[in-house]
């Protein structure tokens, strides 16, 4: 205060304050900016990162530090994003984690999701479902083959199967889908729907019937008959085929095979014989199928 009162060295004091501030600011920039830029650098490599909020990034930073990449780079996701950002497996896994975070995932749940995904891509023992005689959606020669053990009344199947149908219809040479009946015992309309789809198959209209049944919100007998009509089946043959003994036998055989592969619920999805554990919406299924194609083609 003396300085102000006597009028001396006001500028000197300002200079001191100013230079101190400048020093602190420089130090701050030197220390913090690289960290900040580094963080930003990571996010630039992460697909979908622009949609993340600060809380999501906090969760993901912890996930990236804790989880290892299961392919492409033998390190944590965080380090892999730095060292091998061009690796498709790394980017794909990071993008998967982002989607889980956006769906409200916690650190623990996302870590578990990543474990499940690793197991889906590299399971200890893949199985070989028998698809002989089954109608294919997509090109049977496609490198990615999905076999779905599914039920018509199950709401999650009503998400997964239409999504898989969309993928295999849009890109038939990329992936092929086979459907196997796995009617859940506690569902009332499952077996009537399964017999309907098998009977439609006998008239070569399996997938049309399949799509129509999944588009229905209810599966009463009238809804099933409505589908049969819409699809253009011969209704008389349809009815006799539905009641035929071999119809039920085929469904039983398909479900038995599923049970022998440890399917305990629907939809049970196998991608090239590898049991899929994970979210069953369009984006995530497509992502998993593309990963499988990369594995088959030796890119992952």
């Amino acid at each position, binding site marked *: 205060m003396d300085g102000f009162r006597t009028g001396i060295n006001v500028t000197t004091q300002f200079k001191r304050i100013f230079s101190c501030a400048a020093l602190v600011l420089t130090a701050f920039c030197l220390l913090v900016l690289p960290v900040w830029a580094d963080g930003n650098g990571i996010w630039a490599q992460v697909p979908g990162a622009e949609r993340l909020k600060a*809380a999501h990034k906090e969760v993901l930073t912890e996930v990236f530090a804790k989880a290892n990449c299961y392919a492409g780079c033998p390190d944590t996701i965080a380090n892999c994003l730095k060292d091998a950002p061009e690796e498709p497996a790394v980017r794909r896994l990071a993008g998967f984690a982002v989607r889980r975070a*956006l769906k*409200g995932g916690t650190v623990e749940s996302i870590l578990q999701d990543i474990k499940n995904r690793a197991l889906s891509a590299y399971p200890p023992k893949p199985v070989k479902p028998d698809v002989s005689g089954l109608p294919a959606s997509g090109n049977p020669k496609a490198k990615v083959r999905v076999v779905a053990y599914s039920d018509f009344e199950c709401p*999650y199947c009503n998400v997964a199967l239409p999504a898989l149908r969309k993928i295999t219809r849009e890109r038939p040479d990329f992936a092929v889908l086979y459907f196997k009946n796995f009617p*859940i015992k*506690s569902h009332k309309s499952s*077996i009537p729907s399964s017999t309907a789809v098998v009977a439609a198959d006998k008239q070569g209209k399996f997938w049309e019937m399949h799509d129509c049944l999944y588009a229905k919100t209810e599966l009463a007998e009238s809804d099933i008959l409505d589908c049969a009509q819409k699809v253009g089946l011969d209704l008389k043959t349809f009815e006799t085929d539905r009641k035929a003994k071999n119809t039920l036998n085929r469904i039983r055989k398909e479900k038995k095979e599923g049970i022998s592969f440890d399917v305990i619920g629907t939809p049970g999805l196998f991608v090239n014989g590898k049991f899929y554990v994970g979210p069953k919406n369009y984006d995530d299924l497509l992502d998993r199928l593309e990963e499988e194609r990369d594995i088959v083609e030796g890119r992952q």
Partner: protein
Amino acid sequence: MSYPTGKKMDDVMKRFFIRIAILLGVPLLLAVAVNLFRPTSLDWIAKEAYEIFQDCPEATAQAEEVQVEFVRSHATSLLWVDARSEELFAVKHLPGAVNVVYDTLFPVAEEDLHNLQSISKGKTVVVYGEGGIGKLLADDLASQGMVGVKYLNPQFDWKTLLMGEMP
């Protein structure tokens, strides 16, 4: 009654709605403030559809697995249930066993379930059968509301129990 007398009905109604507005407005402010400051805040408008579904389980309840030691120690209070086909049951089965055939597609018929429930009163139901169908049937029975159903560890060959010692 609690309202001061002599006031017009309009005023009473007005006060009523003002208070309602306050009772809704204060929570709105609280909600906005708390959501603003909590780290796991929710977007006011959801961008992603909620994942409301999960796999439909074939069995909504799980039966308990028991080992052969349990069977030995509870020999007198057991009711064996044979999950295999009628033909196989006719050839050979554990003494005192009841045959309830496991079917891949259909649950146990209501009638059979009631029968089983009435004969198993006071006993522990233990299901057996080849290739894991013991567990499958036991899970079905549990899902259909039977309490305390158990199944014999499928690793253990139930036929060894026929060799004389037990039960």
